[in-house]
């Protein structure tokens, strides 16, 4: 009996994993080879998907990227015995440099286990953190999170422990834990992969959060564009309830924590935490003014911890391995690891989880391997569609929240989108405004009308056609508009849109007719 792993996550399936799995099953049957086919989560090496693994005494052997048409050949080459005769062979999976050179905390189990198996999860350290937390007073739990240095991974990087402390300190009969799984930034996929590859990590983290602040109900607000993650979460939740890790008596402690998953309706703005809360309440997703903070007046007006998927998932690792372990990673005030997501025009896209402190260039060149097109890289946008575009001169920047802020850029949720030299940066600036116009909730004026005018002003710059006066006037107007949006907008949507626009104008003036 041989165990063969074929990933079941969205990316692998998009690249034909289901067909590969079916082909392997059929081929094994026809050859009377006894295999156990496990649908694991992905390892996050998307450039190798579909990455098929075979369990051998020497560890798991990797083959990829595999198409269904390659399967017969793999069998011929004896892959099921771990033989390395195929052109698709990569040797032991753990030795693939892309994986080996990472420091995986959040993604330590990703791709290794069957994401729906609680036993497998526990066999790999799962629920050790909860056991630990169940023995602690609420304040001790919150102190531990504070001590770990964990900051919100959704983009704003607010210290999680301080947020939790506010919720703990706010008296209320009912409190909530809300997981922001509305991962909408272009070029990001870490949340999805975590939920699809290791959902119990998130469930465990949320349970610990509930114990920490005194919340008995949690919600995962999942974007509707993630149907596979939805299926995985639903089953994982049912399994957690079945195993007694959710409900009125978690792990036999007599303590309650209930958790459900709710689907969004396709609005980027609902990834903004206050809009998300409105949407979760069944309302139109509209940004709320702060104060009051959601930690004090959150979901249904009750104190609410709202954190990103990675933030909450990290909590289980912190309680499994200790705050000291976690804060021992990273640099400055950016502690622990950050799963970066390589996307765009890149040769080797995927998840690269590293401790804070590497450089952007290492990430793009050593891991990414340059552009997919083979042309020179021109610009890279870090932190989603509202992040700044960085020119080559800035690529040695250290992956660290403060370093990015100093460069008027942001790490955000860790998305890295690479562009080659064929990109038109005026078009990218226009896209930033257009994206804001399409996704604005419409509540505040700088964002609602400003983004529309931003597109028009950039069009006028493009249309100035050598008329320097027209170009310069509109560049000044664009700068003032960016200022109005940055300082006048109600939330980060309008407030950050100027970052990609200004960085494009600043670093690539030639694309604006200069």
């Amino acid at each position: 009996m041989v165990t063969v792993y074929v990933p079941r996550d969205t990316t692998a399936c998009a690249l034909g994993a289901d067909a590969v799995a079916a082909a392997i099953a059929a081929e094994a049957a026809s050859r009377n080879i006894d295999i156990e086919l496990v649908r694991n989560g992905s390892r996050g090496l998307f450039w190798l998907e579909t990455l098929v693994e075979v369990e051998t005494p020497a560890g798991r052997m990797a083959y990829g990227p595999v198409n269904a048409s390659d399967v017969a050949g793999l069998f011929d080459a004896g892959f099921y015995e771990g033989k390395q005769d195929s052109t698709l062979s990569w040797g032991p999976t753990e030795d693939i440099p892309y994986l080996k050179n990472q420091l995986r905390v959040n993604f330590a189990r990703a791709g290794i286990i069957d994401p729906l198996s609680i036993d497998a999860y526990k066999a790999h350290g799962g629920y050790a953190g909860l056991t630990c937390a169940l023995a602690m007073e609420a304040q001790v739990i919150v102190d531990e999170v504070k001590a770990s240095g964990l900051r919100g991974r959704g983009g704003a990087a607010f210290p999680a422990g301080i947020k939790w402390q506010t919720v703990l300190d706010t008296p209320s009969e009912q409190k909530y834990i809300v997981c922001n799984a509305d991962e909408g930034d272009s070029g990001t996929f870490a949340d999805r992969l975590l939920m699809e590859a290791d959902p119990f990590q998130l469930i465990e983290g949320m349970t610990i959060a509930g114990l920490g602040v005194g919340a008995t109900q949690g919600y995962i607000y999942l974007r509707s564009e993630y149907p596979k993650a939805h299926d995985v979460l639903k089953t994982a939740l049912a399994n957690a309830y079945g195993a007694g890790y959710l409900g009125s008596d978690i792990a036999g402690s007599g303590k309650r924590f209930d958790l459900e998953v709710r689907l969004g309706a396709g609005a980027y703005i609902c990834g903004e935490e206050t809009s998300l809360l409105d949407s979760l309440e069944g309302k139109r997703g509209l940004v709320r003014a702060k104060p009051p903070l959601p930690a004090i007046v959150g979901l249904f007006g009750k104190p609410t911890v709202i954190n990103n998927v990675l933030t909450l998932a990290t909590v289980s690792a912190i309680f499994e391995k200790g705050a000291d372990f976690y804060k021992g990673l990273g640099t400055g005030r950016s502690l622990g690891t950050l799963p970066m997501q390589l996307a765009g025009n890149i040769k080797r896209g995927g998840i690269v989880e590293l401790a804070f402190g590497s450089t952007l260039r290492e990430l793009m060149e050593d891991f990414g391997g340059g552009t997919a097109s083979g042309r020179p890289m021109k610009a890279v946008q870090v932190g989603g569609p509202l992040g700044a575009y960085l020119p080559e001169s800035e690529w040695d920047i250290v992956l660290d929240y403060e370093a990015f802020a100093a460069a008027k850029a942001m790490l955000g949720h860790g998305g890295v989108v690479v562009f080659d030299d064929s990109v038109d940066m005026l078009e990218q600036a226009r896209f930033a405004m257009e994206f804001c116009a399409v996704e604005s909730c419409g509540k505040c004026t700088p964002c609602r009308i400003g983004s529309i005018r931003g597109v028009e002003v950039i069009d006028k710059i493009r249309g100035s056609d050598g008329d320097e006066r027209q170009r310069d006037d509109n560049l000044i107007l664009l700068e003032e508009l960016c200022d109005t949006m940055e300082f006048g907008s109600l939330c980060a949507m309008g407030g950050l849109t100027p970052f990609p626009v200004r960085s494009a104008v600043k670093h690539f003036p030639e694309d604006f007719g200069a």
Partner: protein
Amino acid sequence: MLQYYEPEKDFGTPPSLATETVGLMIDGVAVDVPVGTSVMRAASEVGIKIPKLCATDSLEAFGSCRMCMVEIQGRKGYPASCTTPAEEGMVVNTQTDKVAGLRRNVMELYISDHPLDCLTCPTNGNCELQDTAGEVGLREVRYGYEGNNHLDAEKDQSNPYFTFDPSKCIVCSRCVRACEETQGTFALTIDGRGFESKVSPSQNEDFMASECVSCGACVAACPTATLTENTIINLGQPEHSVITTCAYCGVGCAFKAEMRGNTVVNMTPWKDGKANEGHACVKGRFAFGYATHQDRITSPMIRDSIDDPWQEVSWDEAFGFAADRLRETQQKYGPNSIGGISSSRCTNEEVWLVQKMVRAGFGNNNIDTCARVCHSPTGYGLKTTLGESAGTQSFASVAKSDVIIVMGANPTDAHPVFASRLKKRLREGAKLIVVDPRKIQLVDAPHVKADFHLQVRPGTNVAFINAMAHVIVTEGLEAKAFIAERCETPTYDQWAAFIGDKQQSPEATESITGIPAADVREAARLFATGGNGAIYYGLGVTEHSQGSTTVMGIANLAMLTGNIGREGVGVNPLRGQNNVQGSCDMGSFPHELPGYRHISDGETRGTFERDWNVSLDAEPGLRIPNMFDAAIDGDFKGLYCHGEDIAQSDPNTHHVEAALSSLDCLIVQDLFLNETAKFAHVFLPGSSFLEKDGTFTNAERRISPVRQAMPPQAGLADWEATMGLAKALGVDMHYDHPSEIMDEIARLTPTFTGVSYDRLDELGSIQWPCNEANPDGTPTMHIDEFVRGKGFFAVTEFTPTDERATRKFPLLLTTGRILSQYNVGAQTRRTENNSWHDEDILEIHPHDAEERGIKDGDWGGIQSRVGDTVLRVKVSENVQPGVVYTTFHHPFSGANVVTTDNSDWATNCPEYKVTAVQVSKVVAPSSWQDRQKKFNEQQLELLKGAKRRDETARQPG
């Protein structure tokens, strides 16, 4: 109070109710404000106006327009002052170069998508966008006007009262928030997002087709010309305004009548009005056009017989004619053969004069009022148990209630402004118990759901209220300390023995009331243990053969649970008409002098006799139903009927018409030739509330000023007309102004001794008792002790009504009213409110309809033991099987042809709410309706005659 037109001060955000304060510095000015106050409001308190568009102090801060950015020392960025709470030691700068630039740039964005038609815009001169553009110094729009915009957005003119012009919308959401927070209807939303955001009634419907109830809150909240009253569009901005009180329901909303000359341009709810605090409904806000309707009769008229044409005469001729006839009648049939009916729609001062004229001039106590047919059981029941014939609370009290019983009332339709307060409290989490045979809107409204809807069978209220008390007493949930300290012990013990008997238990009464016993038990426990319990009730309680008993049962329940004497609790009758409370206070009942003092009490009578210089009859006079009976018997021959349409509103129309036809002298004083006037010999034109000074007293005992906004159409205000008639009868009566009448009221009525027009000007309004003990009035009654001393638990034995379903009349008809129409409809039918409800409809349960082969829209014949009529049918699950429902807003509906003369045992209040009927499918109107149509045509012809003759007479030589 005459005011020159000026928008009222808007502090931007609502006040904080906190008692603790914080001190901060704004532009170098030190200011202390309650914790929770916004920086914007704090600034406003010291006269610093921060530019704003989306903020207004009737709505929670929203933070969308970004005009109100300020700089705060030690904080990064430019926080919106509306959403930033003031904090101790904060140093705020409201005007710096940076914020000035940002504001100007935001305004530039607004104006880049706004039509530049200020000069022809209806809100020119009263537009916050225009004002704010001026404040921030916008001088150019560098984006140009050719970009993406909404200038071609189409107007929605579906609503008769206001126009929605989305091309002018700045998406501040004030309308949406007003619909939610102020009105509680949730009819509006923003549809789409980003630049496509658009105010949308319901789901992209027009306003008329949507759930909008036309309260006007959105129109009042709109800072631009997007939502504008059609009167403003047609007439222009007002130039002065008069603070006055609405003449519709018993909520008594304060309004600014906004005028151009003598023309009302707009009725705007007054922010400082304590009953409504700036809110209104479709009636008070918009339905004022009746006051200048062409049907108004503006000249006195007389005729010998009702078959004669009317003849227009001078006021003096009319007074002389009427006085002569009344005196002749008395000579012929005796002093008690004439009487008067005062109006709950008229002012306190006018009611006072009417009862005074009857007592002093007619020489008898044959005075009654239309409250006879609505809230007389309230007067009796509350006087008996608590000691005062009035509700115990202010409307604002509901904001502190935890469990609310609404029984036999339909606030969203009949008392909409109070309903908005109630819904706000319910949205905050208060529990609601609805007791009503019909599924009223509160049972399941947006963001409001009744915890219990106890669908009581019509006519069984007493059995229900007893069962509630039974549960509380037998389960030991009563407020023992309160009862021991505040109530009469022997009567309580007696009552407790009665109520504790198994006969009163929910299980025993279930088959009577139709309410599952378990629900009654749960509801009773909730009411007894859920915190502040308040009871609101309406005519569904009073208009029964045991109306007074139910009122006493309600008072018992309140005392039993200790829910009397503080805010958030109490017994709260919702009064139907604007001045029901006042007309009762003013001595309109045949057995009571003003202030609810019995006529047989020699001392009280002596006070009046000395003041009026007459001797008064010590015997109580006739109630309205007695007058009708006596008229048919031939003993009662003359009636002065002021502002009430008894022919349409009183039960058993055949009987009423027979009585009216037997009169020798019927004097009707009214705005219109109403149904009663068609039987009259003298018509004295009335004056609308816009045409006179006076006061109304609402359901919370609040005496509010009514102020003249335009001259009386017929030359005399009602009080002057009554005075003229009284003088012609030889009564010594002279007043130059209603304030003098109020002085007399204060002189003679112990609960009014502190009331005067000067005090009203000073305080805005006063809740009686207002006297030496309570110089500023009394918002909450019975605080330390009951007016009668100790509370009295009256034994409330249930006696089934005679009016019950039989094989011949298997259904129970109950009646009510709807939002857009008011009472007999004399006013609202003469406005655009008819767009919502132009005929009365019979609601019937699908099961009963099916059995009778009746479909939606069919004509249904309704037959009771006294008469029959025909109405269009609506098949609806709002009513339970066995119950049918209609309204009585239209004269040809003949709802009261069907209702019987059954009445309350104590007060003769008619049992409108229970009539056994049969309903069948028919194809033609009833014979009464045919006759009524002919009679109406004939009478209108006789009216035309009057006008023609008058015109002929006026032709020169």
